[in-house]
């Protein structure tokens, strides 16, 4: 069955220049392995293909547990000079949570 990440996890977006950070934190720590298996760099790259132009790095934080995605060239030039409405990309946490996984 397809499930939106929104129903399994929460996320906060952050910015540094043209780089976007997205956390992915399961509500239930037991879902962490499912997130690790399915929310891969490739899957996120594919999902955010119209938002992230550069590389994506995924960090695993089993202690919390949480995943952290660091997305290069994702803010159309960065907070200060971008013409987009959401120059910080703050709303993009909810773009990640729109992704569907099998669960």
């Amino acid at each position, binding site marked *: 069955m397809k499930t939106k990440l929104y129903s399994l996890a929460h996320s*906060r977006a952050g910015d540094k*220049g043209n780089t976007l950070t997205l*956390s992915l934190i399961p509500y239930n720590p037991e879902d962490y392995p499912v997130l690790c298996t399915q929310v891969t760099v490739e899957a996120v790259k594919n999902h955010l293909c119209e938002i992230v132009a550069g590389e994506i790095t995924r960090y695993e934080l089993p*202690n919390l547990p949480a995943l952290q995605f660091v997305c290069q060239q994702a803010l159309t030039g960065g907070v200060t000079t971008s013409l987009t*409405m959401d120059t910080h990309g703050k709303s993009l946490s909810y773009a990640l949570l729109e992704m569907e996984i099998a669960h």
Partner: protein
Amino acid sequence: MKETIRIGCGAGFSGDRLEPAVILVQQGQLDYLVLECLAERTIALAQKRKRQDPTLGYDPLLERRMECLLPHLLEKKVRLITNMGAANPPAAAEKICAIARQLQLPVTVATVTGDDVLQQLTGNEPALETGKPLNESGALISANAYLGADAILPALATEANIIITGRVADPSLFVAPLVHEFGWSLDNANQIGQGTVIGHLLECAGQLTGGYFADPGRKDIPDMAHLGHPFADISADGTAVFSKVAGTGGLVSVATATEQLLYEVMNPGQYFTPDVVADFTQVRLDQSGSDQVRATGGRGQTRPDTLKVSVGYDAGFVGEGEISYAGSNALGRAKLAGAIVQQRLQDRFADLRVDYIGSTSVHRTAFGHYPDPYEIRLRVAGRAATAKEAALVGEEVEALYTNGPAGGGGARKYVHEIVGIVSTLIDRNQVSPHLTVLHA
């Protein structure tokens, strides 16, 4: 030495609310209050204000914050550490003293300067983002090095009630009082790493206490209208317990703290500050009580030899125009309007953006299949070298009133001056923090 030190964070950005800080000082039994009010761009904008008037260039809300906080800070013997000095900490200190004299309060203000390194740069230094010389980005306005906790320590050693700085790394505002109170060594990277975790959790104020976390029905947060800002009780071993003033709104939970811990973290194993390269990967967050989270396990490696410098440059002007459509075929009419404006402006703007607010404006795309929205707002934005050229965007959007598709309403137009930011590195030995003490 006290067993624990209580540090509150009453503001997480320049425009943050005033009231939570007052509640923290009045009811929070704090030792220190930190107000973090300086984003990357804020200091460049402040530098522009200082150029126009040498008595300005500090945080625009400084007066209002000080007028409501000063009496309580003195009554409760809470020391304030803040980067509200922005581009002009000495002028901010003068202003605070003037307010204190007006209120007939005896205040000592310590000012930390030395972050402004614009005169030390040639402009040929490579930007970290592009690798190209800084001055290829545009005319440089400001260059501020991120000072660390070591720059604040001499100020804490004075009797100052208020310590005002310019550009200091956000976590360092919190690390400094911990080092001062507990006598931690700046060379103890694990201890400073844990201090940095504490500062990072606190620095965005309401982002820790459930404010930016809330999502009704999914992540419910009580009494958001009275959202309290956080404080932490820190022991000499670095263990920190985060909470908020009883009776304020919000929530302090492992989930709210986890979101904040990872906020803006580019590499959880290597979080660079002037004090340390902090490692967040072994951090443990535990719910130690109602609205109480304990954080342990922050570590670190030796601080970098260089300091990051945030460089502001003139990036021209952005013009914007907006107009709304509603009812049948709202999106169709908005898209026709967007195409018309784009055709009229594309030869004059290298950089033009058309957004449909209510559809694809902030995610720049849409996921899944959504029905057409009942209402839609067209937004067009373009950048130009002058304000006059930038204004054309709003003028063309407004002209859709009589010339454009049917039913356009609520047109608005704006022009903003834009400051761009790039970064570079400077040897820390080239930066000399300086302390000045003023008495009101």
